Structures are given as C-alpha cells and as structure tokens.
C-alpha cells in the first residue's frame, strides 16, 4: 500500500466542500437523532449513503477521466494503488461515522454508549464492504457504471426475492444467499458472525478487484 495515495485520498475528502458540508449535516442530524428512543436510528443510513458516494470514485471514473493513466506510470503496483485508494476512502468515511456516533453520544449525555459503539463498529465494517464492492465494480467498468450496477443488483435481487415462492427452491436459495452476502442487513447489536461474514466478503471483493485491475487494459486518448 502507498502512504502517499492514502494520505492524498483522505486529504482530498477533507478539503472537499461537499464532504465537509455532509460531515456538518451528519453531526447536526446525529445530535437530533439523540432525541429518538432507539440509539443509532438514523446516521448509519447516512454513512451507507456516504460510502456509496465516495466509494464510487476509485478506478472506473479515474480511468474514464484519464487520471489513472498518469498514476499508472508511477512506481506503484496496480494492486497497491487500488488498495490504497480503498483505504483512503474507508478512512474518510470511518471518520464521518465516528463524528456521527460521537455527536449522538453527546446528545444522549453519554448514555447508551454500548449500543452506539456496536452501531459504529457495524457501520465501519459495512463501509468496508460497500467501498470494496464498488471498487471491484469500478475495476471492471468505466465511469460511474459501478454505482449503476451496485443499485441495479440490489433492485434485481429485491425483485427476485419478491418472486421467492414462484422461483425454484434452489434459485430462491441462491438469490437469498447472494443478497445476504452482497447487501447484508445490519444487525441491531454486535454479531461476530455477521462481522466475520461482511469482512470476508469485503476481502473477496478486494482480491477480485486487484486481480481484475492487474489484467485490465487502460487505453488513453480514445475515450
């Protein structure tokens, strides 16, 4: 991994007006969510949204804009670059999640700390999976097709799940398994099995992303 790429990725997020505005909004909303009975009722969804928006950036869009070609002539392996970009994005989103959790915790006068801590950990692991999946999709597509495929897959899986009873049992089970692995529902408390599943799936997505990106051709000048 490259410290230069990680630092630069984090720096760019924290010098982006959009990211900082989102962070401010997140802090305000999180304090507001402290009035709800259930801890961590709202901000984890916003963190998912932030992970999708920021996780869409690496590889695919960079290839289409021509940025990637400038990077790939530098002394940095493709896998190192990809993993460093993911690490940078994840760190930026993790910071946002920590800010949201801290704001809610302050709003609740430090009560329900275990629940908010669990929600933060779940959220952080989920962010890794989302960013890894989007990066994998970005490593095999151009521009922001990764986001389109990500949402498309969610919609298709939801539709197929809706036809659950009409599908052959094997297909229905496969659809459920894919959905469960790619878009796992976050549990309300700490669940080590869930954490392990999500972490493993993220690792698989990153390995596939590295393999795809290593073999990928990145032509320039003929977008």
């Amino acid at each position, binding site marked *: 991994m490259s410290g230069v790429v990680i630092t630069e990725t984090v720096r760019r997020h924290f010098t982006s007006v959009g990211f900082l505005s989102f962070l401010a909004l997140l802090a305000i909303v999180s304090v507001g969510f402290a009035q709800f009975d259930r801890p961590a009722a709202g901000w984890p969804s916003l963190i998912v949204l932030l992970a999708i928006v920021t996780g869409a950036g690496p590889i695919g869009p960079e290839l289409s804009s021509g940025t990637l070609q*400038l990077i790939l002539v530098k002394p940095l392996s493709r896998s190192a670059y990809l993993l460093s970009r993911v690490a940078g994005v994840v760190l930026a989103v993790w910071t946002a999640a920590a800010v949201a959790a801290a704001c809610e915790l302050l709003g609740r006068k430090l009560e329900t700390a275990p629940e908010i801590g669990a929600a933060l950990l779940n959220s952080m692991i989920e962010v890794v999976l989302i960013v890894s999946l989007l990066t994998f999709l970005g490593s095999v597509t151009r521009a922001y097709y990764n986001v389109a495929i990500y949402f498309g897959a969610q919609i298709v899986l939801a539709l197929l799940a809706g036809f659950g009873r009409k599908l052959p049992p094997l297909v229905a089970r496969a659809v459920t398994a894919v959905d469960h692995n790619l878009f796992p529902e976050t549990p309300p408390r700490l669940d080590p099995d869930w954490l392990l599943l999500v972490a493993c799936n993220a690792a698989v997505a990153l390995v596939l992303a590295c393999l795809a990106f290593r073999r990928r051709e990145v032509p320039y000048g003929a977008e």
Partner: protein
Amino acid sequence: MTIQVRGLRKAFKAHEVLRGVELDIAPGEVVGLIGPNGAGKTTLMSCLLGFLHPDGGSITIDGRATDDLDVRRRTGFVPERMNFGRSETGRAFLRYMARLAGVPRAEVDARANAMLERLGIAAAADKRLSQYSRGMLQRIGMCQALIHQPDFIFLDEPTSGLDPNGVLLVRDLIAEQKARGAAVLLNSHQLAEVEKVCDRVLFLGGGVISHRETLRHADRVVVAVTLLDGSFDAERVARIAGAAPRENVVIATVEHESDIARLVKELVEGGAGVIDVRRHTADLESIFRGAA
C-alpha cells in the same frame, strides 16, 4: 539500447493495429513518431507505457519489462490531454505526482517550485486546475513528467494547445533532457516541431515502422548552403564542400558546428555568393505524403 521493441503486435478484436513494430531508442536520443490518424501511434505509446498488453513481441526498457517498478521510477509521460482532479491546485497536483514518482519528501517543494517557475506557471500554481487554460494544463503536464528527472520520456503531442513561447520552452526542455542522457519518444503531428527537436523520425503506417529517417547525426552536421545564382564555379564548390551544388544548393557535411563558418568562409573566398546557410534535415512533409 535503452528502449527496445521487437515484433510488437496488438489487435483490437479483429482489427490488427500493430503488426510487428521494431523500435530502438538509445540514451540521449530524441525519436519522433509520426503517422496518419489511426496508424496506431497511441496504441504503440500505450503498449510502451504498460497501459495495453501486447498480443505478441516484446518490449524492454533498460532490459526490463514495462511494468517493472524501477523502470516506472525512471519514466515520465505527458498525455495529449491532461486530466486530473480539476478541483486541485496546480501545486497540490504537482506535489502529489512528485511524491508518487518517488521524489524525497524534503525535495518535493523545491523541485515543484523550480518546475513551475521553469514552465512559466508559478503565478498560477495555487489556482485550481479547472481554471487552467489548455496550454497551462499542458505545461503542468510537462512539470509532472519531468519533476523526477526521468530517463525514459514519452511525450504525446506535448505542444498541442501551447502558444509560441510554450512551444519554444518545450523544445528547450526536450533538448535539456537529451543532454541529460534521457531517451525521448515524441508522438506529434507537428512535423516542423518534430524536425527541429528529433534525432530520428519513425513513420508508423500499416501497423509497422514503414520509414525511418535520421535527421541528426551524433558525429557530424549536415548543412544546406544556398549560393547566389551564377556566382560560383561548380567544380570549385564541389572541391571545397565535398559535394556538387544542385539548383544552387550544396549539401555539405562537416564534423562540428564550428566548421560551418570555415566552410562558408572558404566558399566566399572561392568566389561564391552565399545567400543562406541552415541545418539540413529530411523533408518530413514529403516523407509523410509519400509514406502515407
């Protein structure tokens, strides 16, 4: 040889773009790559930079593969169109590129400032890239390619979008890199520019290097001396210059640039009226027309 290409083949589906390209570039040599649109110049450049995987043949840079990290550490590349995070400032972009290229952290700022100054964009260093004109983007593209003093330089239309001052600046920079011992491959449609800076020109056509032309010899200088009509004795001129005049122009070869003055002096003392003296290079326009 520093950059060596043997039997390079590359096809996109059924369309074979490169059909056995052979290419050598030595240290301190500037080689121009010309050819019509669609000839495969960008494809060749992409293969050399490791962006595309060749279907056959081999590319070695200093005896190593194109994706060798040490080769990359010593490679500079200027794309035809500079694209990068447009919200970044020129200085931030350059610092990032320098760090990625392996420039020590302590030297980054000094080198970035020197390059920005050299390329005449120091005043715009803290502006966002989105505010840069095409020519300024091209200049910062040169900055990022040369900031780590690479040994292998790939330039794709580096003067496109540049004003005449910028063109002269790029010409000087290429000469400096050559003097430093870097191997430079210049892909350009601007034949006059290629003629001015390149030692050799390769014409890419039909998927192969169909024509090679040496514009400058390392060990001698070729000059074209235009003589005043009727002022000279052809035999005498031939004795002095070592070549007979054709249509009042004598193409002479001397060992050093300093010998040009001596040649002119001898011609004038021999009674010939000298109208014009210039370096003689191949007529690329004719070659281009003929080969295309």
